[in-house]
């Protein structure tokens, strides 16, 4: 299949057309959306099948002139860092749409599905774009649909939450836009300028240390807000608590990854000296995120907020892995992104399923659910264990590699891996505390009378959960194929970063 990446962008857009035609018919709209996202999932697997494992560079390249007077190109490509994130995105989108079509979304179904398909365009695009301008367009394209998804179909404080989400994200990304244009102007002389990543990597000698310092900051702000890193995380709990279940799944599962991916894809290889300059602060913030996210999770009374804060901690592992700048850390970070997508996506799904049935999210109001819902308990239990990093499940692999990389981290000045490693490891212990304690309070004990008649998982919910469960176990027991895909590209990025910093400093 040629142009498989473009196809991934076209399919959701094409799906919007029949959606608009059957706009009033909620049933037809749901079917169109489910079929479209399923086709998208299949095509993304085709892309994965076409990917040559072991090659480090970009593959499945597509390139066409887009804005010739600016030298901006429509340029798509994938490497080991991005190729796995794309099926993750399409799978989570498919599950979100499938779950929402089961009755979780009752009003304005047409608009909801249209927003979701548009969101999918942005999400897959972000992981494929190799031109910075194109990347920015996709990065921002995710914003408006998510804004609507939270704001229209969200909880009681949805308007506050969605505005906060948009304003935080936009403030960061607009500064990145200034940075992108600065990169453009520095990339060459008039007529020869470019924003194409492969091109730029060859020209990074043009980026002076001072330039890198500021432009890295502009990029880092955008990505740090998106991730979110502390202290820019305050939009996340609000957005998650108010978002509908499907919104939470993709928000945690995919949108946050755009930040970590952006760091690894653009900020680190393009501005290695800037990276070095900001490294101490970024590592500190990562470890703070791990510990702070975990401590705050322990005291959460709201189930969804707990999962949201645990995301802050998990994303801390991603940034930590990226910024220790070694192979284990980098591979661990990518794996952590992938695993967090499946596991936290699943956790939000199950919190959502639970809420649909009980209409309660306060942990104190729940309890004993295991007595009534054996199936739910089994699934939820596995995901909770995966999230806390139990060996044998996928969460462990990523965190282990990140910690391994952290221990090997050995900077010229400042505290090294032997300081940060143990500090981050405490976060893993804390994760066990808040997750197990939550599981105990929610699932065990006596079941309330009011919940006694509530049904266990419906077939649709099982269908939604099974792929995630399979991947959670599979990636935990057998992570090697994924590592084999990721590793060469991470190595390449790190090599480029070291090389480029040598060129500039010379």
């Amino acid at each position, binding site marked *: 299949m040629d142009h498989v990446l473009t196809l991934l962008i076209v399919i959701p857009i094409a799906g919007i057309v029949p959606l608009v035609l059957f706009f009033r018919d909620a049933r037809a709209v749901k079917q169109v959306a489910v079929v479209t996202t399923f086709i998208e999932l299949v095509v993304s697997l085709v892309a994965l099948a076409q990917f040559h494992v072991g090659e480090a560079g970009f593959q499945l390249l597509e390139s066409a002139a887009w804005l010739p007077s600016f030298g901006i190109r429509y340029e798509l490509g994938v490497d080991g860092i991005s190729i796995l994130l794309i099926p993750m995105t399409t799978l989570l989108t498919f599950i979100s749409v499938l779950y929402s079509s089961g009755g979780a979304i009752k009003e304005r179904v047409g608009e909801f599905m249209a927003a979701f398909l548009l969101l999918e365009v942005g999400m897959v695009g972000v992981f494929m774009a190799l031109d910075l301008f194109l990347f920015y367009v996709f990065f921002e394209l995710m914003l408006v649909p998510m804004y609507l998804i939270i704001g229209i179909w969200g909880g009681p404080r949805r308007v506050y939450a969605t*505005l906060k989400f948009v304003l935080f994200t936009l403030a960061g990304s607009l500064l990145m836009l200034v940075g992108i244009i600065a990169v453009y102007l520095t990339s060459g002389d008039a007529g020869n300028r470019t924003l194409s990543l492969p091109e730029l990597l060859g020209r990074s000698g043009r980026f002076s240390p001072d330039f890198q310092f500021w432009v890295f900051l502009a990029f880092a702000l955008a990505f740090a807000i998106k991730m979110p890193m502390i202290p820019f995380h305050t939009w996340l709990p609000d957005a998650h608590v108010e978002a509908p279940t499907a919104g939470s799944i993709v928000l945690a599962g995919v949108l946050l990854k755009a930040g970590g991916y952006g760091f690894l894809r653009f900020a680190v290889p393009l501005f290695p000296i800037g990276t070095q300059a900001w490294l101490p602060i970024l590592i500190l913030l990562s470890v703070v995120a791990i510990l702070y996210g975990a401590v705050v999770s322990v005291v959460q009374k709201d189930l969804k907020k707990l999962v949201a804060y645990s995301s802050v901690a998990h994303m801390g592992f991603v940034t930590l892995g990226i910024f220790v700048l070694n192979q284990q850390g980098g591979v661990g970070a990518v794996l952590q992104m992938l695993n967090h997508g499946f596991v936290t996506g699943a956790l939000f799904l199950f919190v959502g399923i639970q809420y649909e049935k009980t209409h309660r999210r306060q942990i104190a109001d729940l309890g004993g659910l295991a007595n009534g819902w054996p199936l739910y308990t089994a699934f939820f239990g596995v995901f909770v264990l995966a999230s806390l990093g139990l060996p044998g499940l996928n969460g462990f692999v990523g965190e282990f590699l990140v910690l391994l990389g952290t221990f090997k981290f050995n900077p010229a000045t400042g505290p090294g891996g032997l300081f940060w490693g143990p500090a981050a490891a405490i976060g893993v212990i804390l994760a066990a505390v808040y997750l197990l304690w939550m599981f105990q309070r929610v699932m065990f004990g006596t079941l309330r009378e009011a919940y006694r008649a509530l049904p266990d998982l419906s077939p649709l919910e099982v269908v939604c959960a099974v792929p995630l469960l399979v991947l959670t176990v599979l990636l935990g027991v057998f992570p090697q194929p994924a590592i084999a895909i990721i590793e060469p590209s991470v190595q390449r990025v790190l090599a480029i970063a070291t090389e480029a910093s040598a060129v500039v400093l010379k």
Partner: protein
Amino acid sequence: MTFDDLVTVLPEIVVTATACLVLVADAVVGRAAARLWLPLLTVAGLVAAIFAGPITLPSHTAFGGFVVVDTFTAFFRVLFVVLAMFATVVAPDYLARRAIPAGEFYATILFSTVGAMTIALAADLITVFIGLELMTIPVYVLAGMARRDRYSNEAGLKYFLLGAFSSAMLLYGFAWLYGLSGTTTFSGIAEAIAAGGLTNGATLVALALVTVGLAFKAAVVPFHQWTPDAYDGAPTPATAFMSVAPKAAAFAAILRVMMVALGPLGLDWSAVFAILAAVTMTGGNVVALAQPNVKRMLAYSSIAHTGYILAGVAAYQAGASASAAVLFYVFAYGIMNLGAFACLIYLDLDGTRGATLDELNGFASRQPVGALAFAVFLVSLTGIPPTIGFVAKVFILQPVLDAGLTWLAVAIALNAALAAFYYLRVVVHMYMHEVDANAPRLLRTDLLSAGLGVAGLAVVVIGIVPDGIYRWALQAAAPFVR
């Protein structure tokens, strides 16, 4: 004056003739027929005007050097005609509902359009001034056209008084320029100034007066005070037109006068313009944040956009890309801002008052097409892809950074984030609030929906493939490249 001279300004003649024809037709045909035929006649005349003038041609002067027709002229001719057409299409049902005389409305818009087109033709201070007056005097009338509404009266009067004041100031500045150089042609002034520089105190006075006069016309902070009341009080279709065409024309005048006649002083005025730009965008946005009335909020937002455009003018050292960015932004702003104001026409309120945020509650479920178009315009005004407003911001940021004005670029970015708050708040009320019991009636107008649909589509399509328009703007900026 030769026959060739007249051919040069054929599009302007066509629009003038159409205006006269509309006035005659208004007197002749019955009221029911007028409702259909007058807008049709107006649009037909405007279309004819586009075809009456060439899109690109080697620049040539006419009327003894008073007039120049070049790619710049061609660009603005098309832009003004499109804006006038858009304003005509959205108006009929509103005018009928408020009993505003339709014939006069269209004719006034056409006369104003001729004035705006004249500015784009100018090679001489006198032509600029005639064009400005011919453009703004009809707009004063437009603002006050709802005769029995006191806000409309206030709008007309305020606009007229401050407009007259700024025209006087501008004219005084032109007089100083004439005194300095002994000529009113742009090229002559440029030569005289290049020889003398800014050493002469008189040059400084002339520069200051001209800058202030033009800043009034474009609604630059701190010369913007007339804008909110004039925009708010005018009948909404008039506001939609007023907020874009005169501003575009003001920037045409700024480019012609500043870049050509005062080009040799570029380094001196560009620093001032950069500061004015930052003050204007920040001032407009901060005040817009606090507006519960959407029409007034859009008035302040249009001030903020003046700031973004002005930033492009300030970056003139970046060369053609700066002027092209200004032209593209003016084009983008024209469509999206006219569209945004026009969306308020749906709300059938008393007088000329604009809707408050609360009155827009649940608008999406009452008028899906209008709400979607409004949302697209607002997203575009915010500068989020894939819209024309986003690419326009990128095109502005590029020369601003290229000219070394990094602080101004950061100011634009922060301002855009600030503006997102009030733009998206409108979307919140339209999409995320339920319809109130006291929601205003809606005007039934399919023509408006059709016009907004086309404009909304254009905003997205050009946002995805902007290269054609940008290249056209680049060509149009060629006369300013030395």
